[in-house]
């Protein structure tokens, strides 16, 4: 238990251990730990950033959706208005057409009436003449009373 040269040997050994530790043990371990630390910090920051970006994107999506919805309702409104207009237009066109058709038909009817009346008058006058002929045949000579028949027929024509 006496102090001897072990002291010197130990001191040398100790300094060698410290030197080795300082050169080959501490720096690589510390470097790795620092690197990991910064890596983790980066990862956390990236995560945070991602979260924020996600939030932003969500908000953006919401905005876009809202815009789209508004646009869609605008379009629907416009379409409704246009449809109404189209119906109105079609209606008025139809009415016009109907009026035209009606007018044509009326004109035709008029013409029909006129020709029917002409035919009727002709037939009535022929009938009247034949009736008169029958009456008069027994009493009068047709050639004698031509002037009277013409007069009557002229009067009939005026009806």
């Amino acid at each position, binding site marked *: *238990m*006496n*102090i*001897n*040269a*072990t*002291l*010197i*040997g*130990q*001191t040398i*050994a*100790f*300094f060698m*251990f*410290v030197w*080795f*530790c*300082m050169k*080959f*043990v*501490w720096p*690589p*371990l*510390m*470097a*790795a*730990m620092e*690197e*990991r630390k910064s*890596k983790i910090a980066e990862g956390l920051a990236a995560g945070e950033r991602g979260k924020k970006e996600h939030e932003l994107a969500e908000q953006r999506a919401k905005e876009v959706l809202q815009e789209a919805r508004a646009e869609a309702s605008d379009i629907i409104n416009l379409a409704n208005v246009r449809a109404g207009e189209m119906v109105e237009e079609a209606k008025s066109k139809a009415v016009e057409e109907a009026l035209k058709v009606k007018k044509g038909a009326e004109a035709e009817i008029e013409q029909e009436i006129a020709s029917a009346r002409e035919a009727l008058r002709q037939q009535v006058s022929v009938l009247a003449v034949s009736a008169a002929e029958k009456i008069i045949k027994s009493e009068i000579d047709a050639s004698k009373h031509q002037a009277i028949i013409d007069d009557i027929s002229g009067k009939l024509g005026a009806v």
Partner: protein
Amino acid sequence: MAGENLTSSEYIKHHLTNLTYGQHPDGSWGIAHGETAAETAQAAKEMGFWAVNLDTLGVSVLLGVFFLWLFRKAAVAASAEVPTGWQNFVEMVLEFVDGSVKESFNGRNPVIAPLSLTIFVWIVLMNTMDLVPVDYIPHLGQLIGIPYLKVVPTTDPNLTFSLALAVFFLTIYYSIKVKGPGGFFAELAFHPFPKYMMPFNLILELIALVSKPISLALRLFGNMYAGEMIFILIALLPLGIQWTLSLPWAIFHILVVILQAFIFMTLTIVYLSMAHEENH
């Protein structure tokens, strides 16, 4: 136990005797060896200063190499990926030491942290030899012809003093490096009293300076020596009841092992921190 024919005091002394190599008084070189442990110790003493305790030196260097090998392995494998197993443990130790250094050391010095790590782990390993049952290794040594083997290096004052002296030299080296020789002298001479009390200040400060390594060395030595002594005394008890004392003591000693290493490391950091500070 080492031998049935040994008396108790011989047994204890045997355990506390180093394996010393040096020059015998007759001029030949060899291992100090006597009939009894006391004679061996006497022979070792007669070798004077130029002798070495082979057991202390051998065990401590082996443990130091073991420490560096273990930590170097982790350092080689170190990466920024997820650490596993052994590397995790090494990093935990490093983090702990680094935390202690950052807590009490304010300057910037790349030596302090590795120094503290070496001190801490090395002392823990050497102290842990205390937990190996006291007879195992000496008995093994005897079987292969080594007469004396003191397996706990920290129970040898040579080792604790060598560590403390190394720290002491570093303290002085950094004091002079940081403050300059004049600054260092001023720190010793002009405190705590005014300049006209310089001789008194010098005596006071020198005592304070020298007491640091001595207390550092003796604290570690005393604790481990006493612990080892108690283990040896327990080993003298009858076999059946040894464990009732040795188990609690061993469990308590785990605390002492780590605590002493931690104290040594912390004080080293504090002393070196003081060496780096400009004024008291």
